[in-house]
C-alpha cells in the first residue's frame, strides 16, 4: 500500500493546495421553506485531502453533503466538482454522481438484495458490466472491507458495522474520485464504530479524497487534513485539525468541542502502526 498521506501537522500548506480544488462550495444557500439551512457557505476540498465537517446537529453539515452530489437543490451560490457546476440544468448528474461515492448514516443497503448484489447492481445497471465482471469486481471490494464471507447474506443478517462496510464497498465499486460520508458511524453500536473508522482510515491512507460529516472528534483530529466547523447553517471556522482542536479562534467552536467533552488537548500524536480501534470521544446519538 502506498502511503501518500504522511501526517504533516503544523505544516502551513494544505494538501493539494497547488492543484484545482476537487469540490468547491461558493456562497451556497439553501432554504427549506422559511428555514435557511445553509447561509452562503464556502469551503473547498483539494485532491487527496480528507476534510471533516463538524458542528452541532442541525447545523447544515449533512445538507451541504447532499448538495455536493445534487441530491439537494440549492437556492444560491454554486457547487463545483472538478470544474463542473453541479446545479446546472445541463449538468449530467448521473455521470457526476458516478465519480462521487456516498455513504449514509443509515447505511441504506438495499434490503431485498444480498451484500454482493448490493454492490454489483449499479455496476451492471450504470456501468453496463456483464454479470460476471460485476460479480468479480464486487467480490474484490467485499474482500477489501473484509466481508467476502458475507457475500450472499442479506443486509438484515449483518451487524450495523458490517452493513456500513458493505455500503462503503458499494460506493467504492464505482471507482469514485471523491467519497462523501454522511455521519457514517452515528447509527452504529459503539463496539462496531471502530471497524468502520478503520476502513475509512485505510482509504484515507490510500489517498482517497474524502469529505466526512462526523461527530467522531478523535477521528477528525487524527485523520482529517482540514476541518470545517458548521453552526446554524454557517461555516464559522475552518483550519488544520491541530488549530481547530487546540487553538480554535472562534469561541463557538471551543464551546462546541467542550460540549462534546473534548478536553483531551494534549493527546499524543497519532501513529499509523497503532493497534486498531480508534476509540475516543463518541457522541452517542445520531440525528
Amino acid at each position, binding site marked *: 500500500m502506498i502511503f501518500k498521506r504522511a501526517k504533516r501537522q503544523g505544516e502551513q500548506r494544505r494538501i493539494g493546495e497547488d492543484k484545482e480544488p476537487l469540490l468547491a462550495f461558493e456562497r451556497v444557500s439553501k432554504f427549506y421553506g422559511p428555514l435557511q439551512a445553509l447561509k452562503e457557505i464556502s469551503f473547498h476540498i483539494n485532491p487527496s485531502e480528507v476534510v471533516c465537517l463538524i458542528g452541532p446537529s442541525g447545523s447544515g453539515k449533512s445538507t451541504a453533503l447532499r448538495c455536493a452530489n445534487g*441530491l439537494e437543490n440549492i437556492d444560491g451560490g454554486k457547487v463545483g466538482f472538478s470544474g463542473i457546476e453541479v446545479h446546472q440544468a445541463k449538468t449530467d448528474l448521473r*455521470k457526476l*454522481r458516478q465519480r462521487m461515492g456516498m455513504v*449514509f448514516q443509515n447505511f441504506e443497503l438495499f*434490503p431485498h438484495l444480498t451484500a454482493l448484489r448490493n454492490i454489483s447492481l449499479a455496476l451492471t*445497471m*450504470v456501468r453496463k458490466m456483464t454479470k460476471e465482471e460485476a460479480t468479480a469486481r464486487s467480490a474484490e471490494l467485499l474482500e477489501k472491507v473484509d466481508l467476502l464471507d458475507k457475500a450472499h447474506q442479506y443486509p*438484515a443478517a449483518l451487524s450495523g458495522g458490517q452493513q456500513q462496510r458493505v455500503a462503503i464497498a458499494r460506493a467504492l465499486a*464505482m471507482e469514485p474520485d471523491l467519497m462523501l460520508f454522511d455521519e457514517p458511524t452515528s447509527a452504529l453500536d459503539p463496539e462496531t464504530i471502530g471497524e468502520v473508522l478503520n476502513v475509512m482510515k485505510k482509504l484515507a491512507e490510500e489517498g482517497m479524497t474524502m469529505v466526512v460529516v462526523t461527530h467522531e472528534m478523535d477521528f477528525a483530529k487524527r485523520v482529517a487534513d482540514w476541518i470545517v466547523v458548521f453552526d446554524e447553517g454557517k461555516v464559522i471556522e475552518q483550519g488544520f485539525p491541530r488549530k481547530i482542536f487546540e487553538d480554535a479562534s472562534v469561541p463557538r467552536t471551543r464551546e462546541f468541542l467542550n460540549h462534546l467533552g473534548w478536553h483531551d488537548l494534549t493527546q499524543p500524536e497519532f501513529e499509523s502502526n497503532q493497534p486498531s480501534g480508534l476509540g475516543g470521544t463518541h457522541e452517542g446519538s445520531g440525528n
Partner: protein
Amino acid sequence: MTLDWAVVWEHRDRFVDGAAMTLLLTVSTMALAVPGGLILAALRMSSIKSVERAATAFVEFFRATPLILQIYWAFYVLPVTFNLRLSEFATGLVGLSLNVSAFNSETFRAGILSIRKGQSNAGLALGMSNWQVFSRIVLPQAATRVLPALASTWVSLFKDTSLVSTIAIAELSYVSLQLRAQTFRYLEILTAMAVIYWLLGYPQAKLADWIHRKVKVEE
C-alpha cells in the same frame, strides 16, 4: 318440502361455465388493475399539480361510489356519451378494472411511500436513473409490502364479480339466478351457488392469509 338435488347435477355444465367465467373475470380484472393501479399511483405522485389532482379525483370517485353504479354507468352511459359500444364482458371488465385500479393505486401508493427516501438517494448517488431506482430498488421492496393488501383485494374482487350479473354476463351468479328462475328450485340452486363460491373462495382467502403471515420485510 321435498328437496330435489338432481336439478343441480342436471345443470352442472352451466354451473361450471358460470364458475369459469367468474374466475376469468377475476383474473382479467386483476391483470388490468395491477398496471392500472401502478399508473394511477404514479400519476397521483406526479409533481405536476393538475395531473395529481385529476388522478386523485378519479380514485376518490371510484372509491366512494358503489361498484354496481359504476357497472351500470359503463353499461348505459359509456355507449351513449362516448359512442363506445362494447360487449357485455368487455363492459363488465372495464367497470371492475376501473374500480379495482382505484383501490390498487391507493395500496401501491402507500407501499411506495413507505420506502424511505434514503433508499432512492442511495440509488441516485450511485448514478442510477430515476426509472432504475424505481424499478430495481423501490418497487421490489414496495411489492412485498403490498402483497398482503393485494391478496385481500383479490378475494373481495372474486366475490364482487357477482355484480356484473346485473348486465347479463353469464358468470356464476347470473347463471345461478337464471336457473333459480327457470326451475323454481330456490333452495337447491342457491345452496349450490353458495357451495361453489365457498369452494373457490375459501382457498383464495386462506392463500391470502398465508401471504399475510409469510411476507415480512426484514430490514
